[in-house]
């Protein structure tokens, strides 16, 4: 599906007193449905801002964002919440699990609110946590926590899975495993996954690579033959 996600001239300006900081300065790109997208760029390039705008956590100063035919940039705060609720799955660098809930309950927390969820246990089994479902986050390793986080995002059966540095707090192997999980999900479920990373080494695994620099898209390329994460070393 062409232009499942379409950003047109998105800008985000923070005003700090007299100074205007253009965190995002006119970004244009579009993503097809089912693509595994990697957005790379140095720190402060505006990747996270773009992701936040994509996920409805933040609003653009100007420009338009269309997701699945809906113009998100015109949404009210409440509509945005609904958008997050129904269409978006988030995976954070620091997992952001609710510490007081077990792995399963953390997934269920998300399922409470959406219309067409997947089964929590199935999803957790899929992410390889069959045995750890009843453990609290503090009892899980970082990778396991991130798996729960992914499971929580996936279980909502979102249109978009947005991952902000999902491996940033993980060691190499675990990080790789997580990326593998994400890639597999994309491939198997046909889910559109957008991953932000500062690690350019991950570029080959993406269907579409977007490079952002100083709030602008410096380069966007389509990878006709993405490689499996297993083949990438960094």
């Amino acid at each position, binding site marked *: 599906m062409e232009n499942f996600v379409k950003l047109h001239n998105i800008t985000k300006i923070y005003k700090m007193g007299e100074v205007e900081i253009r965190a995002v300065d006119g970004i244009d790109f579009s993503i097809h449905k089912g693509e595994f997208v990697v957005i790379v760029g140095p720190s402060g390039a505006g990747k*996270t801002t773009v992701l*936040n705008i994509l*996920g409805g*956590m*933040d609003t653009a100063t100007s420009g338009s964002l269309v997701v699945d035919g809906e113009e998100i940039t015109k949404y009210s705060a*409440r509509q945005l*919440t*609904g*958008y*997050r*609720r*129904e269409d*978006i799955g*988030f995976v*954070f660098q*620091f997992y*952001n*699990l*609710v*510490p*007081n*809930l*077990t792995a399963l*309950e953390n997934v*269920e*927390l*998300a399922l*409470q*609110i*959406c219309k067409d969820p997947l089964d929590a246990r199935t999803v957790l089994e899929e992410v390889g946590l069959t045995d750890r479902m009843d453990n*609290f*986050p*503090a*009892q899980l390793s970082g990778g396991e926590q991130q798996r729960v986080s992914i499971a*929580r995002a996936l279980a*909502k059966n979102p249109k978009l899975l947005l991952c902000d540095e999902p491996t940033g707090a993980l060691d190499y192997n675990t990080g790789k495993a997580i990326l593998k999980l994400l890639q597999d999900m994309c491939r198997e479920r046909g889910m559109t996954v957008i991953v932000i990373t500062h690690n350019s080494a991950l570029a080959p695994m993406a269907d579409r690579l977007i490079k952002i620099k100083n709030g602008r898209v410096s380069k966007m390329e389509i990878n006709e033959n993405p490689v499996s994460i297993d083949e990438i070393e960094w």
Partner: protein
Amino acid sequence: MNRKALRKDFYMEVRRSLGRFLSIFFIVAIGVAFFSGIRSAEPDMRVSGDAYFDEKNLMDIQVVSTLGLTEDDVHALEKVEGIEAVEGGYSADALCTGNENESVVHISSILPTMNKVQVEEGRLPKAADECAVDVDFLEAGEYKIGDKITFRSGTEDAITDTLQTDTFTIVGAVSSPCYISFQRGSTTIGTGSVDGFVSVPADSFDMDVYTELYASVEGAKALTAFTSAYDDRVGEVTSRVEEIKEGREAARYQEVIDEANSQLEEAKEELEEAQSEAEEQLAEAEQELEDGQSQIDSAKAEIENSLNQLAASESELTAKQGEIDSAKAELVSRQSELDAAKAALETQKTALEAGNITKDETYQAAYQQGYNTALLQAYEAADAELNTQAARIESVITQLKEEIQALEEAGDTGEKLEELKTQLAVQEAALAQINSDAFRSTVKEQAKEELDAAFPEQFHEQYRQQALEQVNGYLSQLDTGQSQIDQAQAQLVSGQEQLDSGWAQISQAKAQLAAAQEEIAEKEQELIEGLSEYEQGKTEAEEQLTEGEKKIQEAEDEIGKIEHAKWYVNDRNDAITDYSGYGDNADRMRAIGEVFPVLFFLVAALVSLTTMTRMVEEQRTLIGTLKALGYERHSIAGKYLGYAFLATVGGCTAGVLIGEKILPYIIITAYGIMYTHMDIVLVPYNLSYAAAASAAALVCTMGAAFFSCFKELREQAAELMRPPAPKQGKRVLLERLTFIWKRLSFIWKATVRNLVRYKKRFFMTVFGIGGSMALLLVGFGLQDSIFNIGVLQYEKIQLYDGNVILNEEADAGEKQEVYDSLQADSRTDRTAENLLTQVKVHNGENKGEVYLNVPENTEDFSELMVFENRVTKERYSLDNDGVILTEKMAKTLDVEAGETIEIQDDVKGEIPVKVESICENYMGHYLYMTSELYAKLYGKEPEYNAVYFKTQDGTTKQAQGIGEEILENPGALSVSYTTDIESQLDDMLGSLDIVIVVLVISAGMLAFVVLYNLNNINITERKRELATLKVLGFYDKEVSAYVYRENIILTVIGGIFGMILGNILHQFIIVTVEIESVMFGRNINISSFIYSFLITLAFSFFVNGVMYFKLRRIDMVESLKSVE
């Protein structure tokens, strides 16, 4: 903090987290204000009271003696070491009847300097017949300034025995330091309780000795009343006064006995005098009566006499009338006769005047007779002439013979003799001729001839003249007759008049007599009366004399019975009504102060402690950074300690400054409702409480800051830079109960876990909310307990609406009439007659005064009075085995049902009686027994002196209507209405009400601050979690609900905890706050539970509402960006 950067950071910290700074500031301020303020109320009350008493120069020691006190006693007392000054005063209790009700007043003299009364209106009395009256008593409306007030003693003795006069003019309204509240003390007359006091100048009393002495103690004024320092000082002097007591008592006794004896002598003399006087008077009276009798008798006789006379006069008058009438008739006939005669005479006269003489037989006869007579006369005259000539010749012969003889004898013969002899012979011859008949006949013949010639004419004329004269004589006689008749006529008229007046006089006299008779009858009646009076007087006099004798006898007995003088040395507590009550109130305030503020403060301290702890925890990273930069530990900790210090000290200062002024002021002013005239309010700063509260607050916040910092600083810098290891999620107990857990929705599971997880927050919140809730509940509960008693007492226990006190002076019939008319009144539902009297009871050492209530009819009485166990609600009824005692008194006496107490009686001494059961009661103390039991215990039938009545519709108006009517009966003395008492009660307890309002408001404020603070902390602490929820697509409402759910559960748990805590506190406080004669309710109304819970909930919701905005403002991006 000697480094600029750190200092700047500190100031920035305060500015940035101004909310937190202020929340510590205020929570400390409220806590300290409440703690030190409520605590200060107690000493401030004492100080204010003391200032008032000092201003009024209130005595410290009072000495009362059963036999009065003399100047000697004053001097003796003055000499006691420690006594500064002594003043003597007089006092007496009296009855007076104002507009409607009879009242009992305590009259006392105004002292020179002590116990100064305060003029509220008007002025102080100056003259002996002026008085100033209790301002509260005047407000009751029986009297007003300018009225006259008349006192009666209420005993057999006249009031004028004690006072100069019995009627006074009210010139002013006053208050007295001796009567600081509503109570006016008790008395032996009237209703038994004094309604007001009256101040009069000392001159108004007519007494030889003082009734009481007042003394001030050296140095006592400088001490604060109601403190042990004062009590000790006065106690010390009091015991010294007790030492001189015995000597003075004996001296006074002797004095009184002597005086009494001399008085007795006087009395005896007086009696004797009276006896003789009485006899004299009786005798006089008797004499008078007798005089009266005789006067009446003579008067009667006189009247009888007069009557007779009157009768005689009447008959006389009648006779006279007859006479007059006949006289009149005669007069008339005479008149006619006279008139006829007159006419005849007039005819005759006319004829005569004409010369016509009728020569009728009369004339002939008269003529013949006249002729004969004239002839005879002419003969006689001739004879007489002849005789006279003869006699003259004879005398000449004689003379001649004598001269012849004389010459013959003288011998002279001469010529002379011869001449003489010749003359003699001539003379003798003349004589012989004269004497010769012949001569005589010739002479007679001659005379006859002469007569015949002259006589017929002479006679005719003579006859006519004579007849005319005769007619004229008749006519004049007729005139005389006429005038006589006229005179007689006039006499008759006047006689008639006299008769008429005589009749008038008679009738007048009759009337007079009748009046006199009446008067006499009256007099007689009077006399009879006088007699009976006399008899009566006599018996009376005799009786009086006997009585006098008896009295003297009694007096003699009494002198024998005069008890030894007894001194009562009283301090203020004993002498002044309600004085100790004020102290008790201060103590009560302390009791409240010991519980309320502590709890309050505890909550405040814990909350500020949590806030500080949280602050340090929040700044973990900063601490780590500073530490990593190489700052010393104390420099880092200094910031937090300084922060806590600044906020706490600021809060303490504000709290002390405001709290110690406002709260004691409110409380003392509130008590002012009860102590209306104690107008001095002193609220000095009590530094000890301020210091204690501040120190405690400082220890809490600084300690919290210190320990938190210490904990953090112990860790390595690197460790601090990392986020704290998140708390482990834990399975809660509830999860083991799978059947419940399974049923819980997922969100509820999370809520339960969260609650259990943040245990500190859980307990803090529960304690905070629970504490506030407890304070609210105690506040409302106090109000319930206090305000309920009116309702409980008069709507659940004493069901009657009014109580008519019978006049003891009235006779049985009059009393019965009161009862009957009450019963007959259609507006009354029920009535019950009973005996109501105050008695002293004791159980071992525990003593008390109760109203003994003996109902005449137990059945009726049970309709007006409910005997019930407060807890078990078991109903009791009176029987002859024992008495029913009210709860508070049972507690005071420390008796339980089935135990025995003793009633003190003047006559019977100690009467042991079994307490059958103990009943619920709130106002006053009562001891109920049946009349049979009374008769058994006291050996006499109860004299019923009160009638309870209940109206049909239970309104005050109706009760008052009945009361007003019944008061017109001489048998009714006064009426009291339960609604009156209820409102009086409300006044009395209104003061506590304000204290309660203060408590409730403070507790509410505390609840708010606690909730706000804890919620704030909760949200800040869980910002990340909440942001996550938002990212996951939770709507604002859902996010809020997630938090609220916990808050509501915490509020509910806190509320339940508060109810339990509040109930316990309430029980404790209610017992401490209670007044002696009153039992407060032990219960808290369900509504109060609901109210305080609702208020807590309302605060909770309000705080949650505020939090909603805070939750909305949580920025997902910022919150999730990185780990702090």
